[in-house]
C-alpha cells in the first residue's frame, strides 16, 4: 500500500492510482529515492554523458512514471545506457537518487521481459552467473561468452587487444575461486527468497 508521506501529499499525490507505478519504483529502490520530488528541471538530462543515445532523458522517464506509462518506461533503452557516473545525482536540486532508480528500472524490465535490446541484460546476467559460480569476476570467461553471443563480428578487431592483455599477464585463462563458495551461495539463495517475498 502506498504510504501517504508528507512529501507525497505536498506533491499533490493523494490517490492510490497516481502512486502505483511511481510508488512501486520508489519502494524497490535502495535508499530513499525522493522520486516523487522531481520538478522536471532537466538537470539529469543535461548532465548525462550518454543522453545523445537515450530514447528518453531521465527527466522524461520520471514524467512517464508519474503518468503510469509502465510499458513505455520498461521498454526504454535509457536505464540500460546509464553509466552510473552520478553526475545527475549530485547535481539534482531535489536529491533524487537517479542512478539507483535506473538500477531498479533495469531489474523491473528484466522481470517483465520488456527490454528491447538484450545485449545489456545478457551481459549483466553473464557477469552475475560468473560471480555466483566463482565468487569472483572472470574476465576471460565473461568476454568470450559475451562477445561470441553479441559481437561476433567485433571479435577480429578485438583480437590484438585480447592477446595483448593475455601476453602482458592482464587476463588469466582460468577463473579464480573464493574458498567459502558454499557460504556465499547460501547467502545468495536466502537473499533471492527474500527478494521474492518483499
Amino acid at each position, binding site marked *: 500500500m502506498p504510504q501517504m508521506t508528507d512529501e507525497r501529499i505536498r506533491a499533490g499525490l493523494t490517490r492510490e492510482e497516481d502512486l502505483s507505478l511511481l510508488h512501486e519504483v520508489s519502494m524497490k529502490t535502495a535508499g530513499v529515492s525522493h522520486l516523487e520530488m522531481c520538478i522536471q528541471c532537466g538537470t539529469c538530462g543535461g*548532465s548525462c554523458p550518454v543522453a545523445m543515445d537515450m530514447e528518453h*532523458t531521465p527527466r522524461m522517464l520520471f514524467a512517464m512514471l508519474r503518468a503510469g506509462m509502465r510499458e513505455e518506461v520498461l521498454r526504454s533503452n535509457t536505464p540500460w545506457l546509464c553509466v552510473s557516473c552520478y553526475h545527475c545525482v549530485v547535481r539534482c*536540486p531535489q536529491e533524487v537518487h537517479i542512478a539507483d532508480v535506473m538500477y531498479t528500472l533495469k531489474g523491473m524490465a528484466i522481470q517483465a521481459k520488456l527490454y528491447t535490446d538484450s545485449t545489456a541484460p545478457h551481459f549483466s546476467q553473464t557477469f552475475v552467473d560468473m560471480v555466483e559460480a566463482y565468487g569472483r569476476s572472470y574476465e576471460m570467461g565473461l568476454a568470450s561468452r559475451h562477445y561470441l553471443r553479441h559481437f561476433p563480428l567485433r571479435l577480429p578487431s578485438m583480437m590484438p587487444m585480447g592477446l595483448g592483455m593475455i601476453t602482458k599477464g592482464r587476463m588469466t585463462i582460468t577463473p579464480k575461486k573464493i574458498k567459502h563458495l558454499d557460504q556465499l551461495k547460501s547467502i545468495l539463495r536466502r537473499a533471492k527468497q527474500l527478494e521474492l517475498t518483499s
Partner: protein
Amino acid sequence: MSEKKQERVGVYVCHCGTNIAGTVDVVDVAKWAQEKLGPQGVVIAREYKFMCSSLGQELIEKDIKELGLTRVVVAACSPHLHEKTFRTAAKNAGLNPYLVELASIREQVSWVHTDKAVATAKSKAVVSGAVSRVIENRALDEIKVPINPNTLVVGGGIAGIQSALEIANAGFHVYLVEREPSIGGHMAQFDKTFPTLDCSACILTPRMVEAGTHPNITLLTWSEVTNVAGYVGNFHVTIKKKARFVNEELCTGCGICQEKCPKKVIDDVYEAGLGYRKAVYTPFAQAVPNFPVMDKENCTYFIKGTCKACEKFCPTNAIDFTQQDQTLNVDVGNIVLATGYDLFDARRVSNYGYGRLPNVFTSIEFERLSNAAGPTNGNIVMRDGKTTPKSVGIIHCVGSRDKNFNNYCSVICCMQGLKFAHLVHERTGATVYNFYIDMRTAYKAYDEFYQRVLEEGTLFVRGKVAEVTDAARNEREKGKLIIQTEDTLAGKQRRIPVDMVILSSGLQPRHDAKDVGKLFGISCSMDGWFTEKHPKLDPVATMTEGIYIVGCAQGPKDIPSSVAQGAAASARVLDKILQKEIALEPIKASVNQEMCSGCRICNGLCPFNAIAFIEDDKVTEINPALCQGCGTCVAACPAGAISGTGFSNEQIIAQIDGLLLKNLELA
C-alpha cells in the same frame, strides 16, 4: 488552597469553523467541562462557531454580567492571535482582563492530531488545566511606560533609507546606522532597475541625499551596533563608530586624497571584485556622506609607517592618522532592521565554473559591467576587458531552489535575468540565451517585460543548466564556453557554445544574520531570514515588541516590496510614538527578600540587566521597569525566592494538576 472563595468560571469552546471542530468534538468538550469541572467552579460551558466574532464576544460579556462570572476560559486558538480580543471583552464587561485564560486547542491540538477521539480527550485535559490555572490568576493592572520618540534604523539600503525618511518627515528623530562607508546598499551598484529600466542611481541618489541632509536624521556610516539593552519604548543602544581617519568636520569631500593615494586595491564590495579603489576612498561618486574612509589593512602608512601622501595633499588638513574607534550610546523607542542580504557565492556551484572559467560572471559583476560608472564605463565586455561578446548565456536559479544550496526561490532572479538579456541585447547586439526552470514574473508590469524581452529575440531554453565547460567536443565549440543543458521542452540535451555566461545568483541571509538576530532578540527562520510576527498579517513586526524587519532581511524581495516594507514599518513606529506611552504586560518577577539567601546566582542571568544586588542587606532586588518577565531568574533561584506574576508556582502547579486531571480525583 483555593477554598477561600469559590470562583465562578465560564468555559467557551470555539469551533473555529472546521479548524477545531473538524478534529475535536467541541460539543462533547463543552458538555464534559460543564459536568466534570463543576466542582472546580465551572458554572457555564458553551461552544460556538466563532468565539472571536462580535456575537461570540457578546456571549461572554453577557455571561459575565448575568451569571456573575469571576473567571473565563476560552478554548480556541493560540493566545498570540486572540488573547487580546477576549481580554478586551472581559474588560468591557467589568472583569479584570488578566482573569481570562486561553486554552490552545487549535495550534496544539486540532492542527497537530488526526485522531478525533485522542484530540477530543486532549482538548478536555487542556481545558481542565486552564480552568485550574485561571482560578489561581490574580487581577493585575497594566504598566504604562513612556515611549522614547527616537528611532534606530539599522542598514542604509533602500528599505532602511525609506523607513528613516518616513519617520523623519513625520517630525521624529532617526539614527540611521550603516556598516559601509556610504548608504545606498545594493541598489547603488545597479545600472537599471526592472521592469521599467529606470536608472538606479537616478532614482536612488535623491533619496540618499535627502537622508544625508535631513535635519531629523543622524547618519552614522562606517558604524555598527554592538549592544542593545532595554525594551520597547526604552532601548539603550551602543554603536561603534569605526575610525575613518578623516576628520568629518574638516573634510570637504574634494577627493584629492583618493587621487593622490598610491595604493590600488581590488574593490570587493562596491565593484564586486571587478574594479579597483584606493586605500583611502569613497566607494562611488554619489556616496553619502562623501567623506572618504581609510582602509587601515591596505594603507601603506599603516603597513610600513611611511607615505602619508593623502595628508600632504589634503587642502583642509582633514586626514587624521590618530583617530580611534568611538563608542556612542543612544536611547530609542523603536528599532527597524534593514540589514539586507548577501549574494549567493556562485563558486559553490562548481559545475558552472565561476572562478575557474574567466568569462563566467555573477549577476552583481554584470551589474557593474553594465553600469556607466563601473569599471568598463558600461561596456559589456569579457574578462580581457576589451572583447564584446557575440553570444551570451544567462543562467537562472543559481544557488536557489536547490537542496544542495538554498531551498527557497530568490524571487528576483527571473526578472534580473530578463533585465540582463535586455541590456546585453541593447548594448552589444549579441545572441542571448536565457536558461530557466520556471519563469516567475508575478507582479505589476513584470510579465509585460518578459513579453518585451521575447520580442527582442532572446532565446529561452527551459532547463536547469547542468554545466558550463571549456572542454570542446568539436570545432564549433573550440574557444567557447559550452552550456550543457536539457532543453526540456524539446526533450533533448543541448550544448550551446557562447562567449560569456552570466549567473543569475540568488540571495541569501547575511552571513552574520544569526548574531544580529541575537543582538536584537529576534529569531531567524530555518533558512536564516529574520522571522516576522505573522507571515501574512504582520509581516514587518517581530515577536519582540518594538523591533521591526524590512526589506531583504526578512526574505528575498525586489525594490518595490522593500520600499513598501520600509514605509510599512515606519507607520508602525509612528503609531507607537504617537501613543506617547505603551502598556506593558504586568508580568514581572519579584524577589521575596525573606527567602533570598544572597547567593547571586540570578544576578548574571538577567538578559535585561534588571537585577541588582543590595550589598548592605545581602539580598537581590529586581527593577520592575526593566524586568521583561522572561522567567529566567524564577527558574534559576535555588531558594525559590523569586516568583513571576502571571506565572506563579501556584498557577503552574494548578495547571499541571488540571492537565493530568488530578483536579477530578480531588473533587
